[in-house]
């Protein structure tokens, strides 16, 4: 853990529901970190541990260089940590009016009733709900409830605000306004924040830095832009809209006897052997090849030091970098899903490979109509954009020999 004068440093080790969370993170004062990951990856558990709602089994949490918790030795109770939590549900206290909900934090921290109520009233004006001060939470819309919850969290003046998918339960109409409010208030108050989300769009607006959790461990990290353009983990890739294909990695050497480009359609894997039947490079060259085999088809990559023959691997590519043809290509794709958005059509194959093209191109591909599920087309991923990533689980080693005709 880095020593840091201001901000939050945490090394959280907690076992919960078959997942051991073991995560180190550091957020500078006023910094905004996003935690991404699939369901059950341990994101909420991480937040609860930092808030003190779950005791640490290992590690420590330090805020502004004050130790809030040292596993098994020292533990500051949640109400003394000045770490707020905003859930995906507003969780307003149903027995209190809206204004009393917001006044709850200041009042709990020892402010007088009058001070707390006037502070709450100020917050209600700021969020445009002053006229609903005496309403009960159930009389507000979902978006209004979440605004009140945000005001309540900020009114308690936390040093750190933990945001556990705060926009997840909002409809498309109210989510942007609430997101804007969060962005503005975090900037205005300079509150350090950690956002848990499934949505890279949220991370873009609400975080400067991201970590990606899988099975309780950090598997990817970087700025939101970096994750969106060069994801290092399949979950991050899928979040960023990349096509993600799982398969088995084979490596070998192809001996070239012609100048024709070497493509995956000319390679087959049979009885544990990768057999290159095509020709690549200059005549007489020996070309190292890496193939991601999925069933009877292959994607061609470049050899990767992180991968060995027989390893389970994942290829990621942006669908815009996959060419589509009705007659020929590297990958025979049977479409399972066709979706259009913003003038583009995305074609998904059962393997996970996907291509994206304009509506006009999509129509011309299938003789005037839009492609549909069940159609067969040919995908050709641009090799320079295809990236192959190792996965943790490795399949048994398969001896691979690459030969040429």
């Amino acid at each position: 853990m880095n020593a840091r004068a201001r901000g939050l440093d945490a090394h959280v080790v907690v076992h919960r529901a078959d997942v051991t969370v073991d995560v180190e993170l550091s957020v500078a004062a006023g910094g905004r970190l996003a935690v991404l990951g699939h369901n059950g990856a341990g994101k909420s558990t991480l937040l609860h541990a930092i808030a003190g709602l779950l005791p640490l089994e290992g590690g420590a949490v330090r805020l502004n260089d004050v130790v809030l918790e040292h596993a098994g030795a020292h533990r500051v109770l949640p109400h003394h940590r000045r770490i707020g939590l905003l859930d995906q549900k507003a969780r307003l206290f149903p027995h209190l009016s809206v204004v009393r909900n917001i006044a709850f934090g200041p009042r709990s921290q020892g402010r007088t009733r009058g001070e707390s109520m006037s502070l709450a009233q100020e917050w209600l004006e700021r969020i445009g709900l002053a006229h609903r001060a005496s309403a009960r939470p159930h009389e507000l819309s979902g978006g209004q409830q979440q605004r009140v919850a945000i005001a309540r969290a900020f009114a308690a003046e936390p040093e750190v605000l933990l945001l556990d998918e705060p926009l997840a339960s909002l409809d498309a109409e109210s989510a942007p306004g609430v997101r804007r409010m969060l962005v503005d208030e975090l900037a205005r108050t300079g509150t350090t924040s950690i956002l848990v989300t499934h949505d890279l769009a949220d991370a873009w607006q609400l975080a400067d830095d991201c970590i990606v959790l899988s099975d309780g461990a950090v598997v990817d990290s970087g700025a939101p832009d970096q994750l969106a353009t060069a994801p290092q983990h399949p979950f991050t890739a899928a979040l960023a809209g990349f096509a993600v294909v799982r398969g088995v990695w084979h490596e070998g050497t192809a001996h070239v006897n012609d100048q024709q480009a070497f493509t995956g359609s000319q390679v087959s894997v049979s009885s544990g052997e990768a057999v290159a039947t095509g020709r690549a490079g200059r005549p007489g060259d020996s070309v190292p090849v890496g193939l991601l085999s999925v069933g009877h088809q292959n994607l061609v990559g470049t050899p990767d030091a992180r991968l060995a023959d027989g390893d389970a691997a994942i290829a990621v590519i942006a669908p815009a970098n996959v060419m589509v043809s009705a007659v020929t290509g590297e990958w025979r794709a049977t479409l399972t899903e066709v979706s259009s958005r913003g003038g583009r059509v995305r074609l998904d194959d059962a393997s996970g490979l996907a291509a994206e093209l304009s509506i006009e191109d999509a129509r011309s591909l299938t003789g005037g109509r839009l492609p549909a599920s069940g159609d067969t087309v040919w995908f050709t991923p641009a090799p320079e954009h295809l990236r192959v990533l190792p996965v943790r689980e490795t399949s048994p080693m398969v001896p691979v020999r690459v030969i040429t005709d």
Partner: protein
Amino acid sequence: MTLPRGLYIPALVALALLVLPIVGLISRVRWETLGSDLFSAEALTALWLSVSTGAVATVICLVIGVPLAVIIARSSIRTASVLRTIVLIPLVLPPLVGGLALISLLGRSGLVGQPLYEATGFSLPYTTAAVVVAQTFVSMPFLVITLEGAIRTSGVSHEQIAATLGAGRWRVLTRVTLPLILPGLVAGTVLCFARAIGEFGATALFAGNSEGVTRTMPLAIYTAFNGVGVSQDSAVALSLLLLVCAVVIVGGMRSWREDAVR
């Protein structure tokens, strides 16, 4: 979906078994003397004794039962299961056995009663306090079980949010946990009071049947049919009063819960 017709006959029999005895009771009421029967000195004494001891027992149940319910609701599954079983025992125990158990503990030769008597000369059985103890013993499970379910159902999310807003444990309990389960608290309290004023078996054995001291309404009704104390007409009138209380309590609880949901 249409139900099988065969269900209706046993259901009607069940309903008749529940309703007809009440109809029978009402048919025995002498409406022309109802006022004087209810307001006879013996009846009023029994009524006051029932209400006052029932109220005290309910307050005791609240003071010691609410903490127990909170602890059970927030215990591990195994601990909660053990504690819940213990709490349920008086509910399923025949009340007379409960009375016997109380005598064995608090009677003049009981486990605690004997040293208490020897030290202070005070003996609990056959006193008004004994009525309260018997009522508390039999009615506490109603409060604890109702409340425990309500606390468990309400979950811990609001409490956790309150803690992160800076609320200490007592403040969370008094400003969040208990207000959130207010409908359950009211329901449990009403059930507890209803059970207390209707208590008969444990009271009869542990507190006896002394007019003005331990003869509550149920005991007065029982005594009347043995030809002592209040008249049989007064007994029927008191029964009617208990019946009206029961209807008001059940109806009131329903409307409270519906209000709470809104």
